[in-house]
Structures are given as C-alpha cells and as structure tokens.
C-alpha cells in the first residue's frame, strides 16, 4: 500500500485566524520563540501498490480541484510518503 501526501496552506496574503489563535496560545506554555504560526492541512491518499508518476499526477489533480480552493489556498506539496522528497 502506497501513500501520497498532499499539503495545503492558506495563501500568505490571506488572514489565518486559526494560526493567529495558536500563535497567541504558545506563549502561555512558555514558548515565546515563535513570531508567527500559519495553520494548513495535510491529506494522506492511500493507493494499491507503489506510488507511480500517474498516481502522483492524479493526486495533484485532486489537490488542485477539490482538496484546495485556489482563491484562498496554495498546494505546497504532493509527494510519496515513503519516497524521497
């Protein structure tokens, strides 16, 4: 069983209230090193057998048409979970 990872992030210019809330909470744990937090999404798509170029292309299509909204989000990674990045 292969796995393809798709990573989606809010566009840099889009306000990320969730990330902002997380950034506000970290100092309360004594973690004051971080100047900002952006929160995104990671999807794991399972496939039969090995991850092939064709499957990666299909995952890219899924990423761009359903897993992200290009108006507010960027697909920042589509890769074989077990392969080299």
């Amino acid at each position, binding site marked *: 069983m292969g796995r393809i990872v798709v990573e989606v992030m809010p566009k840099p210019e889009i306000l990320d*209230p*969730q990330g902002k809330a997380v950034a506000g909470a970290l100092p309360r744990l004594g973690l004051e090193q971080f100047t900002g937090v952006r929160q995104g999404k990671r999807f794991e798509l399972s496939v039969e057998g090995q991850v092939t170029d064709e499957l990666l292309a299909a995952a890219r299509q899924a990423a761009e048409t359903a897993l992200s909204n290009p*108006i507010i989000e960027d697909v920042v990674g589509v890769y074989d979970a077990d392969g080299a990045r």
Partner: protein
Amino acid sequence: MSAAGARIGVVTFPGTLDDRDAARAVRLAGAEPVALWHADADLHGVDAVILPGGFSYGDYLRCGAIARFAPVMTEVVDAARGGLPVLGICNGFQILCEAHLLPGALIRNDHQRFICRDQQLRVVNDSTAWTSDLEAGQVITIPLKNGEGGFVADDATLDRLEGEGQVVFRYEGLNPNGSLRDIAGVSNERGNVVGLMPHPEHAVEPGFGPDMGGAPRAGTDGLRLFTSVIGSLVNA
C-alpha cells in the same frame, strides 16, 4: 406567469439547517416552495433555486466544498449558467463560491468567533433577480449568524466586482466578520445568481424577525428578496 404559479426550489443537503425557513419565506412571499434533495440530479422544473444555510457535510474540507459535488449541484450550475435565478444564503453562499458560480471565497471570521446578531445591510445593487423590490442605498436589517463569513478575493477581483455592480449588499454600521470592503453579498455578472452571508429568510414574518427600533421582532425586510425573484419571474 402569476406569482402564485412561481415554483421555487429549496435544496436540502446533509447538514442543511434553514431549508424549512427558506421554504416558509417562499410561501409568505406568494410562491410555491419545492423541496429539492442533494442526491437527486433533477430540479423538477422549478423557476428559481435557493441554497439555504447550515453546515452541509459538517463543513468538512471547507465550508461548501463537498456540497459542490452533490448530484443536484451539477443541475444547479448548468441552470444558473442558463439564467435560472439562484440565491445562496450563508452556507449556500459558500457553496456558490466553491462551485465558481460566484467570485471570491469565505474564510473564518477575523475575530475567530461565531457571531449571531441582527445586522444592518446597505443595498448596493437593486437590479439583480433577487433585489429588484429593494432600492439602492436603502438599509435593511436581517439576522446574521456565521463562523466563516469573511468574504475575500484578490484586489483585481474586488475592483472588478465594484466596477461591474456585482457588490449587492454591504455591511452597514459594523463589519461583523472581516469581509473585505464590507462586502456582505455579491452576484454573478448576469445578476441571476446572488449570494449573501446574512439570512433574509429569518426576517419575513412579524413577531419572528429582528427588533426594529421600538418594535420587538417586527422586522420583515428579508421578504423583499423573495418577492423580488417572483417579480422577475412574472416579468420575464
């Protein structure tokens, strides 16, 4: 066509909340509501469609993102491109944006909290299928209730929307969710598809609407959206 002959479809998705209120608003406006089901790829010959509010598919993935792929939406998208009047309220607005029938997107409120209040709106465009019984410049009050109501689009798109008259409603007095340029509702280029975050269907009957000055729960400003579309059908 007479007003009584107008049939207006109200779509129910799993997680839709306001379909009954929308159907009641249609009836109070003088038309016949027709229940449409998300899994049924058939509009049953309706003259207009309302996508009501709620949390379709639990807001999973993104608000409206999964509803967009429901069988009924293929029909709604085709019919809307052909000129069928379509109104998206709250989650319905989010679905119309995800389906690319309307520009822009809705993101989490800038203050990170759900908000529920009686909201003033300024009518900007009174020539759409859903606003012809309102007047540009008029201020109406209808309930607003959302967690992800921040309207965003890039500057070029916002400029185009303003230039082409596609901004239909603007928040008045207070911007409740961080929407860019105070935009509360937009239309497509043709003006047959309109989406807005606040809920006109909750302000259609005296005794159950927003407080209006000294008159508690008296607000019925929302009714005008529903009578507008009936008028546009009768005059079509």
